[in-house]
């Protein structure tokens, strides 16, 4: 293992370009390989959740002696791929040709561009050289910037198709993506405040500290902290909206818009859209893992610190090393968890109505994210000034003042109106011999 690390270091000194190419391949090839598998996974999981069987028998080989080699339908995506390749590629006569060809490419681009900044392993040792592709100083902002570019793929295809349904889908997509972009940015802003860096690798290492700064052996994954939990919920909703998945798949609502913005697309151009969507789901699962779930750490336990403080226990060192070497697999598992969540949502929730979608984004998520941002900023400030006890006291005082103000304002607003009459009603329960009477207050 040490030789391998040295070899890669030698490569990085003498051939930075080669190393860069290796890094790019290490990011892109897994995503491209995993995407067909994801489609199979989604269909199987969905069928299991809906009490069906799903694609389970493609590629079953029956031998001469009657034995069967089963592949659990894993070859289904290959069959799908072959079908998509050989389907007739129809370009409708009325389309804007240049944009019609360009927009699938734009739709595929953000997923890979974002994936390049995700760290698949710790920054030291061999992973430091192999991942991420671009250890950007502005990682989180870059992520937001690139994910907002995905809207062009949707809007331009809607426009270029020259079809009313496509145009409707494109317009819906644009409005939806702009709305949820804001809440997403604000939810990430409080994470930036806390971790003190935009760099994704540093966001992860900020989560490797002790929990809440006090629990020694446990990692401070942001989802365990109060502000981080709120951010995580908001981010999760926005991330589903950004990828146009159920329950936010209004741009491609089948029962209203045929297939929305990709109605006019067939064969490989449709497949590119499909691939872009799944790659984006995968990458966003990874982003959620990096920002809220401690990145490449398996469990929120600080093996490094424990191994350091308990030098006698060899097991600790072993687990620490295992945690290190399993990092890419852990990261992959977190991406898979994200995907599973997406599929679970698809099996559970019906599609939102358009006004509900807008109301959720603008009237709930954005104010909640901004409030979360202000609260976490105030907490950090108070903690810097008075220590955590002072900050705790200050937040209790702040809650009381807010509650007082709220009730005062409410009272002032209700001052002119007459209060609703209060009535009490006696309910008689129990047996006839022992009646129990309880008063219920009706408003």
């Amino acid at each position, binding site marked *: 293992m040490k030789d391998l690390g040295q070899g890669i270091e030698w490569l990085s000194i003498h051939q930075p370009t080669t190393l860069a190419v290796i890094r790019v391949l290490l990011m892109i090839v897994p995503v491209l390989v995993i995407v067909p598998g994801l489609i199979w996974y989604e269909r199987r999981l969905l069928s299991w959740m809906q009490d069906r069987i799903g694609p389970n028998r493609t590629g079953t080989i029956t031998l001469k002696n009657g034995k069967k080699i089963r592949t659990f339908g894993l070859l289904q995506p290959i069959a799908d791929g072959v079908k998509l390749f050989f389907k007739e590629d129809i370009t409708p006569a009325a389309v804007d040709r240049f944009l019609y060809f360009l927009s699938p490419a734009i739709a595929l681009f953000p997923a890979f561009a974002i994936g390049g900044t995700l760290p698949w392993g710790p920054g030291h040792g061999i992973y430091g050289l192999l991942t991420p592709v671009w250890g950007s100083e502005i990682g989180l902002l870059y992520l937001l910037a690139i994910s907002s570019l995905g809207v062009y793929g949707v*809007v331009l295809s809607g*426009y270029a198709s020259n079809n009313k349904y496509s145009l409707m889908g494109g317009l819906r997509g644009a409005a939806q993506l702009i709305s949820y972009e804001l809440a997403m940015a604000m939810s990430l802003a409080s994470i930036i405040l806390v971790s003190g860096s935009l760099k994704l690798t540093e966001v992860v290492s900020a989560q490797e500290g002790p929990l809440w700064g006090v629990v020694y052996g446990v990692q401070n994954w942001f989802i365990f902290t109060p502000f981080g939990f709120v951010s995580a919920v908001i981010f999760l909703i926005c991330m589903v909206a950004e990828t146009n998945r159920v329950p936010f798949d209004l741009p491609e609502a089948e029962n209203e818009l045929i297939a929305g913005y990709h109605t006019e697309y067939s064969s490989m151009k449709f497949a590119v859209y499909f691939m872009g969507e799944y790659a984006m789901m995968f990458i966003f699962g990874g982003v959620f893992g990096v920002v809220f779930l401690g990145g490449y750490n398996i469990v929120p336990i600080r093996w490094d610190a424990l191994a350091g403080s308990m030098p006698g226990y060899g097991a600790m060192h072993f687990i620490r090393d295992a945690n290190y070497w399993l990092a890419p697999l852990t990261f992959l598992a977190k991406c898979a968890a994200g995907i599973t969540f997406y599929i679970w949502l698809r099996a559970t929730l019906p599609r939102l109505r358009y006004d509900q979608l807008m109301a959720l984004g603008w009237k709930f998520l954005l104010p909640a994210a901004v409030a979360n941002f202000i609260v976490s900023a105030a907490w950090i400030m108070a903690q810097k000034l008075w220590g955590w006890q002072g900050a705790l006291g200050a937040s209790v005082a702040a809650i009381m003042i807010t509650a007082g103000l709220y009730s005062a304002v409410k009272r002032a607003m209700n001052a002119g109106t007459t209060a609703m009459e209060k009535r009490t009603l006696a309910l008689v329960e129990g047996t006839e011999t022992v009646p129990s009477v309880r008063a219920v207050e009706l408003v």
Partner: protein
Amino acid sequence: MDINQIPIPNVSPNLVIVSLFSLIAVVTGIGVVAFNNPIRSMLSLVANFFTLAFIYFSMGAEMMGIQQIVVYTGAIMVLFLFVIMLLNLSTDSLTMTRKFDVKPFLAVPVGLGVFALIASQILLPFKDTRTPSAPDATAVSVGWGSPQALGRALFTGYVWPFEIISLLLMVGIVGAILLARRRVEA
């Protein structure tokens, strides 16, 4: 001919990349005004902003470049696109009949004059430059384009302009709401 005799042009790879992006930026910039179709024109502007962002990146001004993408490419241009699509401007309705006008003849000398004025100020520091870098890269510290440096500048030296601009934006938002809200008959 001896291979060592061939003069090697004093060009760094960085300069090649920047020149390439500059070329794209210029071409797309011309595209913005040259296209008849408003969507094409707008997309040229998007490509222009995008390449500008790349030029900023190549100079190490990452924060600047990403702001370019977030604000212009990701938000403002999407709104432009949205509006153009909603109005559904077709190329036919925009084709104008050309008649004699004195403005183009005035515009050329004025435009050239403005160009010369700006170029004389901008191009001077770039004399004899082989690699693209900040005009005063030796004087400023390392990481001059980083979010930290930008944030520090915004919240120390330029805090008043920064806050006043934010107030201006707030006024804009309130104004937009005031204009767009439904009139309620009193």
